[in-house]
């Protein structure tokens, strides 16, 4: 049964680059298994390259308005809603909160646990107002015991709840490494599939403004080897909300990485319900000359560098990989096959970071398509210093990105 949708006005706002063309008249209906526990409204899953599929509730086959603004935009402008409804503007932390609140309304088993998530509203205000609305048990203020309350979340997930565990700062989750590695990732397998762990572990990480070494950690590199978990990093209000919702609905344990400096990003997001696919990368800016892979805060450094590059006559293709584990080899591969040059820009440490894994994955899978070695710009293997100047030099800056692209494209 095929469904055909008209995205009114959507096509006009989309890029016209051939690799990314969307025929507004023809959308594939992929009869994917509806999300478990889904009640009521149907919604649209928008894939990063603009292909949309409709996830239908078997009960209500109401077609939803197509949301197409997750798609490529030309350099600079953030994704603007181009469907007929104007949407609403909000900040990234509000988008996370909105996503969380919607999921909590939708499924009473969704609950939040963490330090200061309840009465305080969350140290970054992501859970503001939720405790008043849902009560102290559903938005649980925990004592400062990361390992134990993460383990508690896992035990709750095994017995039927869907907890969202907040690490006040991602770095604090180092204390929960025992539970995250041993139990979160592995219990589904070790129990022979008997117990699912639909937990979401989220929190802000990354280098902030002079927060010091311990508050500036990038845990994605430490967690990436844990089998059985998925990791995603949000970077815009749109994908923050979408990923939050998708993570909560997923039956797998998902670690959602937010960034301390991105919480106040503003964007207009759709009024309609939507989720983002957990395993997909996001095409930020299609191009021809070089593929730049990035995620989280570095996306913005890359886009800044992209402006300069465009002025210098380069045409970079920017992809926000979003899914740190597993990598979306399709989107990435298509891009590599087109441009033949890859630059990875990340905030992770040089050694053993996401970039290192990504380099390996690209070399393994797309070696034949590369005209130059994969270049990876990461943070230096240095504990983040407090001094502002020093801190600046540990992370990748736009100027370095420009230089790297110039070097690659020689």
């Amino acid at each position: 049964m095929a469904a055909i949708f008209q995205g009114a006005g959507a096509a006009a706002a989309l890029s016209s680059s051939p690799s990314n063309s969307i025929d507004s008249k023809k959308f594939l209906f992929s009869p994917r298994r509806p999300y478990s526990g889904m009640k009521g409204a149907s919604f649209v899953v928008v894939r990063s390259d603009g292909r949309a599929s409709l996830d239908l509730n078997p009960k209500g086959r109401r077609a939803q308005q197509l949301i197409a603004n997750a798609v490529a935009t030309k350099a600079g402008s953030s994704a603007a809603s181009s469907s007929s409804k104007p949407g609403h503007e909000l900040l990234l932390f509000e988008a996370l909160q909105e996503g969380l609140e919607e999921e909590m309304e939708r499924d009473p088993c969704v609950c939040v646990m963490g330090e200061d998530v309840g009465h305080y509203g969350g140290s970054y205000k992501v859970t503001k107002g939720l405790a008043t609305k849902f009560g102290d048990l559903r938005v649980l203020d925990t004592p400062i015991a990361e390992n134990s309350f993460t383990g508690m979340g896992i035990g709750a997930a095994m017995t039927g709840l869907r907890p969202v565990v907040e690490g006040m700062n991602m770095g604090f989750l180092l204390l929960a490494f025992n539970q995250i590695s041993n139990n979160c990732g592995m219990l589904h397998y070790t129990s022979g599939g008997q117990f699912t762990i639909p937990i979401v572990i989220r929190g802000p990480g990354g280098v902030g403004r002079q927060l010091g070494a311990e508050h500036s950690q990038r845990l994605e590199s430490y967690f990436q080897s844990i089998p059985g978990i998925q990791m995603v990093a949000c970077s815009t209000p749109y994908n923050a909300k979408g990923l939050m919702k998708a993570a909560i609905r997923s039956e797998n344990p998902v670690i959602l990485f937010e960034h301390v400096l991105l919480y106040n990003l503003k964007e207009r997001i759709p009024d309609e319900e939507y989720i983002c696919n957990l395993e997909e990368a996001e095409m930020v800016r299609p191009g021809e000359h070089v593929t730049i892979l990035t995620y989280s805060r570095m996306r913005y450094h890359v886009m800044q560098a992209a402006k300069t590059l465009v002025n210098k006559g380069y045409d970079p293709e920017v992809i926000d990989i979003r899914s740190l584990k597993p990598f979306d080899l399709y989107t990435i591969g298509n891009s590599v096959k087109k441009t033949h040059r890859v630059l990875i820009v990340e905030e992770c440490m040089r050694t053993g970071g996401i970039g290192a894994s990504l380099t390996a994955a690209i070399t393994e899978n797309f070696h034949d398509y590369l005209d130059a070695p994969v270049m990876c710009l990461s943070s230096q293997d240095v504990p983040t210093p407090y001094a502002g100047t020093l801190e600046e030099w540990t992370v990748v800056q736009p100027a370095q990105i420009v230089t790297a692209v110039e070097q690659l494209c020689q």
Partner: protein
Amino acid sequence: MSTAFSAAKFTSPPFPLRSHDKPLFDPLKIPNATSPFLGSTRKIRRSSSTKLNLHRRSGTVVAVSDVVKEKKSKSTSSLLITKEEGLELYEDMVLGRAFEDMCAQMYYRGKMFGFVHLYNGQEAVSTGFIKLLKQQDSVVSTYRDHVHALSKGVPARAVMSELFGKTTGCCRGQGGSMHMFSSEHNLLGGFAFIGEGIPVATGAAFTSKYKREVLKEADCDHVTLAFFGDGTCNNGQFFECLNMAALWKLPIVFVVENNLWAIGMSHLRATSDPQIYKKGPAFGMPGIHVDGMDVLKVREVAKEAIARARRGEGPTLVECETYRFRGHSLADPDELRDPAEKAHYAARDPITALKKYLIENSLASEAELKAIDKKIDEVVEDAVEFADESPLPSRSQLLENVFADPKGFGIGPDGRYRCEDPKFTEGTAHV
């Protein structure tokens, strides 16, 4: 090597027994419940615990054994258990013992590998507690989990197969000795790292409370039992969970199987204050000590602790003084422990003790008990046979169960989800 710690002090405290009309123990407020709780509560108040001389081992020990004797002598008709219950307890303990003995045999014959930790000698704790549970109640254990699994109702066949690493094992052969899980019987593991199961147990108890208060399932009174040892009681997760459980009055019972040894580390050498039950009141919950070699005493304490949890009054910390007759694991030569200590506890074998009780109180005859022994032998033999004949996991099982939703393997270069690749069902794909 002699230890200052003498087991005898725990079973015959010198202070007078508390009377039965003492109210239910609660260290935080003046208790006014009327049900008699078999435990010495008068002295376990927060203020007094600081005054206790740490070297005086007799402190505030539960005088369960003496109370039991007293009860018995008052009227011979008021026994602690009925015949039915007695036989059930006996059978469960014999099953645990016979199963573990068979495990040792099978291990030395090369049928099972890795680390296998046997429960011989501690059966009274598992049977005493778990036989009081409903199916929906949860149990969380450690690596010494075979007998907890059996007591909870996991079939001996499933446990033995799991130990042999066969697909018919309770975890499809993927868990092994230290990771027994059963969603049907609500056995939430089986954990290799000590202490890491306690938060999971706390989570299960949290779900129970959540179901009652948020999801409004008014009759949800599921209780969780967390079993762990003396070594774990020095671990951070233990303390963190005692705090949270008491804070939110979670329906959980923390059962310490204090067998005095953490591999080769004596409890006394590792713990500043070896009286573990005292740590309960520090967090606002009752701390009870019980003779873990006597299944009836354990059962009486367990009844009250579980009932407390079911009523929504919160957690209890129960320290069971017990002993493992074998080494820490089958790889442990067990050379450190004093033979006199071992002999002392061997004389208090819980199965022998229960047998004696049943016969002396005419609850069962020698013949009936022998019949149970025989039946259990057959069950265990059958389990071994079943496990032997079961198939080993095939390659196709390798990648199943890594993710509940296999989309988690990601999207491959060809645009399809990797799990759609037939190599995944064959188990030959690389992840």
